[in-house]
Structure formats: structure tokens, C-alpha cells
């Protein structure tokens, strides 16, 4: 028991490295890549697709890099995995532009993250482990399915939006994007790094609300979200519910996986929602 056996020094200073510099470096890199992508996109032609891919890879790769920085407490070791994952994301975005089956490349991203993370036992602290309670996986799927189906029912009942199975290729591409970029980077950063970091300092509710708010902000700033009031309100409501639910699953199971599954299932339902 550490309280009886571990050396204790009441005046020992923290050996934690500063988080600020690497976080700023990643944020600046994100902005540069996104700006470069936008510039390429505006240039039109063949490079426009590459520009859009660079924007996606910049944002999601940046999220993953930020999560990695926080997970390692600002210590050296996040750069190479973050760069490799960002490069893989760029490749997946580029491949997805070639066709629906090119999007399958996104499916490699979670595997790559597993491969990169296997050498860092410290990632256990952000929930990069198998769940302690396997039934949490089922609960995650159930929570995502409940929220997703509820979204579809209430949107169709309340707002009259159509719910239909979209074009299979587009649906596969969207779900693949969620698997390898959208849900993956969100869970990694907001539930993994931020929630875990704040949970240790402020307790569950403060950490869950803060990390969910951050996640919500990220979605509200997403230019691909339809710019209507009811969609915005719905996004706030459902994404807040999803974020809190994923935080609870993360805390209960000790793992990011149930929350990731909940997000995947929710977004899989959301992709059937046709706003315009």
C-alpha cells in the first residue's frame, strides 16, 4: 500500500514538464496545415482535393497530437507517433477522395494508434487499456444506439427531417471517417487526455462537463455541420449527452473503448439523417 510503503516528501517539487510549449507548438502546426490546406483548396484543380485532405488530417492529426502531449505530461516522445498518425490520416483522407472503398483506409487508423501506443505504458492513465468490465462495451454500443435512434426519431417527429438510408458509398465513407478520424480523435483528446487529466484534479463532474464542453465547441466550429438553429440546438443536446455518457463509460470501465463504440454507433445513426 503506497501510503504505508512509498517514500513521501511533503516538500518534493513536481517533476512534471511544462505542457504549454508543446501544446502551443501543436496548435500552431495545426493552424499552418489547415491554412495551407485551405490555400490549396482555394487554388482549385487537382490540388483542391489535397487541400481538403490536408485540412482534415491537420485537424484530426492535431487533436491526436494534443492528446498525446497531455497523455505524456509534456515529456518527449509524442512527436514521432503524432507525425506518423497525421501522415496516415492525410493518406486516408486522400484515399477517401478516390472512392468509397478508399475510405476503408480510415479503418487502419485505430490499429495504427494501438500499435503506436503499445510502447507507452503511461497511456494507461488516459484509458488506453481494455475495459475492466467487458459489459461496458455492450453498454457503450447500447448508449450510442439509444442516443442515435432517439436523434432520428425526434428529428423526424419534431423537425420533419427525413430519415433514410443514404447512398451506400457515401454512408461507408462517412462511417469510415468516424472510425478513423472523427470519433477516434474526439475520444482520444476529449475523453482520453482532457477528461482523464481534469478528473485527477477536479473530480468527475467538473472534468466531464469541461471536456464535453470542449468537444461540443469542436463540433459547433465544424464547417460541415448544417448551419441551422434547430440542428445547432440538437447538436448541443445530443453531443452533450454523448459526451457525458462517454465520460461516465470512461470512468466506470477505465477504458476509452466503450465511449468510442458509443460515438461510432451514434454517428452511424446520425449519418442516416438527411438535413438537406
Amino acid at each position, binding site marked *: *500500500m503506497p*501510503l*504505508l510503503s512509498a517514500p513521501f516528501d511533503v516538500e518534493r517539487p513536481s*517533476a512534471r514538464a511544462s505542457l504549454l510549449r508543446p501544446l502551443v507548438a501543436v496548435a500552431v502546426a495545426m493552424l499552418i496545415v489547415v491554412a495551407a490546406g485551405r490555400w490549396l483548396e482555394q487554388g482549385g484543380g487537382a490540388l483542391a482535393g489535397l487541400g481538403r485532405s490536408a485540412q482534415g488530417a491537420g485537424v484530426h492529426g492535431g487533436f491526436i497530437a494534443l492528446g498525446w502531449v497531455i497523455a505524456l505530461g509534456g515529456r518527449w516522445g509524442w512527436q514521432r507517433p503524432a507525425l506518423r498518425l497525421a501522415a496516415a490520416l492525410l493518406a486516408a483522407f486522400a484515399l477517401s477522395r478516390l472512392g468509397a472503398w478508399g475510405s476503408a483506409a480510415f479503418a487502419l487508423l485505430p490499429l495504427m494508434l494501438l500499435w503506436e501506443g503499445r510502447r507507452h505504458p503511461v497511456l494507461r492513465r488516459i*484509458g488506453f487499456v481494455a475495459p475492466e468490465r467487458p459489459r461496458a462495451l455492450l453498454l457503450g454500443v447500447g448508449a450510442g444506439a439509444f442516443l442515435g435512434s432517439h436523434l432520428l*426519431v425526434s428529428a423526424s*417527429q419534431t423537425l420533419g427531417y427525413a430519415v433514410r438510408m443514404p447512398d451506400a458509398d457515401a454512408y461507408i465513407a462517412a462511417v469510415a471517417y468516424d472510425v478513423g478520424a472523427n470519433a477516434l480523435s474526439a475520444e482520444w483528446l476529449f475523453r482520453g487526455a482532457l477528461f482523464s487529466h481534469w478528473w485527477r484534479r477536479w473530480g*468527475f463532474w467538473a472534468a466531464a462537463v469541461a471536456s464535453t464542453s470542449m468537444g461540443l465547441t469542436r463540433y459547433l466550429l465544424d464547417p460541415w455541420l448544417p448551419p441551422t438553429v434547430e440542428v445547432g440546438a440538437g447538436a448541443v443536446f445530443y453531443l452533450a449527452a454523448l459526451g457525458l455518457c462517454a465520460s461516465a463509460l470512461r*470512468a466506470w470501465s477505465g477504458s476509452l473503448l466503450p465511449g468510442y463504440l458509443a460515438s461510432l454507433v451514434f454517428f452511424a445513426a446520425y449519418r442516416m439523417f438527411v438535413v438537406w
Partner: protein
Amino acid sequence: MVSLRHLYLLPTLWAAFASGTSGGCLAGLVAGFLQAPLVLPGIERSGLDPGALDRLVTLATPLASGWVVGRLRDQSRARAVRLGALLEIQRELAREEPLYRRLEDVAERTRTALGALRVGLVLGTGDSPAVASAPVGAGLDNRSAAAWTLRGGGAVTSRDLASDPRFQLEEPPGPAPRPALVLPLESGAGAVGALALEWRGDLTAATRAAAHEIAMHLALGIENARLTLRQRRFAVELEDKVAAATRRLLELDRAKSEFLSVVSHELRTPLTALQGFSELLLSRTVPPEQARRFIGHIHSEAERLGRIVTELLDLSRIEAGRPEALRREPVDMGDMVERNLEIFAQSNPRHRFRWRPGENLPPIVADRDALDRMLTNLLSNAVKYAPRGGDVTVSAGPAPGPDRMMEISVEDQGVGIPAEALPRIFDKYVRVPDPETIGARGLGLGLAVVKALAEAHGGWVEVESRAGVGSRFRVLMPL
């Protein structure tokens, strides 16, 4: 529909009662979500009219009910568990086993009551405090937080052991925070130990308050257990002392009875002789030679009677705690010893009396009469307890050591004194029973008188003896 929607409350309340706040909130949330598609289109169509507000309230009711009922259930359950644990802890501490054996159970009960991951209990602030833990097996390091608290450092609180820089942990961080508390166990008499608690997940204010409450009860319980233990030990000691005193009183009573019987016998014997010989002299005409012998008998019996009376007077003085009125004068030990040995040699032909004076034997300043009585008593004992005869050696000389003392020793080859009887040998009325000396006469006062007289002179008396070999009495007197 309006009445049916209230049925959502039933599963919510059931979940709140079954699983507490989390279950109640979850069920209330699900109920609210399920109702929303039925409520929201109405609001969309007709705006926030009174009916819509009513439905919105109904929408929120399951969540609010689930939260309130679940929280009440959690609080009452936590209180019940805590009270139960406190009772169990008090019961554990009140058991008659030694305290350290009960600590493991107490630690386990504390862990259950507080929902803690690990509990450590350290008792005592000395070099080797007792340590117990749940799960069992933890040891105490002198550099640990618990040891720091024990040394008077106060309480230690940590939101997460893994990220707290004050702790040097070797194990890798886990996926959840590990909040921890180390609380001093303080009773009215000061710190009696420390309680170390570690959780996984959140540490709520209620749990922290409960930990403080349990620590306070533990401290009082431990203090009470210690006091009870001390009282029990004191009672046992008291019982032993009372039993010993009772035994001693019984022994004294028996010795006194025996003493009275011996005294009456010892007085009657010379009196009978005095009475008989004097009657013979009065009633008959006896030849002068025979008359002279009779008068000799009367004289020796009168002397014996005188000795008994002297011993009884000594006894009364000892019992009353009155010091002997000493008339100190220089006494030549050589003369006194030689005269006594001559007398004893005449009446005890089976014994060989030896006198070993030290070189340049100085005179001793003492009460002549008292010194004579001491020597006579020691010689009398030497003869009495060596019924088969043997050597009786008297020696005297300056004792070794810085103090100016004279050592007078009387050594015999008699039955000796068993080791267990040695501590009582100078007590009054004490006579060590031995089959060989069962017929020896005496009041059991001789050695008590010797001791009292030696101490009255500022000296003391010692004995060395081995059963079956003999005894040696050493009287040390200031010169």
C-alpha cells in the same frame, strides 16, 4: 397519454431504490428521452402554451425524481453502512484478544464502510508500531506518508497518488485517479496511530467526512480498548497481589498459632522443671550434693526462661518498630567469640567449633549485649540445624571494600536452606521444615532478631546456603 406518461416514474423510482443516484438518474434520463419525441412535436406546433409547459415538467420529473430519490437512498444506505461498521469496529475493539490481532478485522470493516480500495491502520507512535491493512500484507516504511503523520506531521490529502509529486510511486499510473487520505488517530490523550485510506475514482466530500468520523471513532475505540486492557491487567495484578497477601496472612496466622503453641511449650518446660525441683527441695530432705545438682538445674532452667523472655521482648520491640536502645562501646570480638564457643562446646560435644579471627582484629563499636545475642542466636541455629554434628566455624575480620565494616560469619555443615525459603528466612516466626530438624526447639525469631539488631547498628546480614551442604551467615557491622 397524459396519465400514462406518469408511468415513467415507476421504473425510475425502482432504479433509484435499487442502484442509487446513478441508477435513478440514468433511468430518469432514459424516461425523459423516451418521452421527448412525444412532447417536443407539440411544442413545435403550438409553442410554449400551458399544456406544453406541463408536458415539459413531466419530461423533467423522472430525472429530478430519480436524482432526489437515488441520492436519499445513497445517503441513507451510506449512513447505515457506516453506523453498522462503527458498531462492528467497536465490537471488534471490545474483544478480549490482544489489540494487534483485531486490527486486520477493523481495517477490513473500515474498507467496506468507506468503499475504499485499500486501508492501512498503524497503531503506536514508538519504534515498532503495529500495522494492519486490508487487503492484508502491507508493511510500514519510515519514509512513508503514514509514518510522517505518526511523527506529528498532520493529515495528508491527495487527489491522485499517481500524479502527486510528494509520493514516489514505483507502480505505473492506472486509468483512474487514486485519491488518498492519511488521518491521525487522535484521542484525548494524544495521537494513538494513523489511518491510511486509498480509493479509486472520485473522493466525495461525504466520503471524506465519513472517513474523519470513522477515524475519530477508531481513535476513541482504540484508546478505550487500551484502557480496558490496562484495567484488565491491573485487575489481574491486583488479584495476584491480594492472593499473595492472603497467602501471607494465612501463613502468618498459622505461624503465630504455631508460635503461641511453641511459646507455651517453651515456657512450660522450664517452669515445670523449676516447679518440680523447688518442690523436691521444699518437701524432702535431700543430701547437699543432690540439692546442689537440683539448684544447678533450677539455675539453668531459669537462664533458659530468661532467654525466652529476652527473645519475646525483642520480638515485641521489632513488632512495635521501636529501635533497640544501644549502648555502644568498643567490644573485643575475640573474647566474645571464644567465650561463646566454649559454652557451646560444653553442651554440644558432637560439633567441632572453630574460631578464625582475622589478622589484627580491631575492636568493634557496638552494644555488647546485642552483639552477644546475635552471636548466640547464630551459633544456636548452627547447632540446631546440624543435628548430626560437624564443623561450626566462626570467623571475623574487616570486610573488603571501601566501607569500614567488620564481617562476622558463622558457617555450619547442617541441613542447609532450600533456595525457595531463602527470601523469607529473616522473617518473623519462619522455621524451615526439615525431617532431620523437626524436633529442634525454637520460636522462629532468632534470625529476625539478628537482622533487626544488625540494622539497628547500621549493618546488615546475608546468607549463603545449599540444601544438604550447610549454611553461612555473614553479619556486616560498621567498625
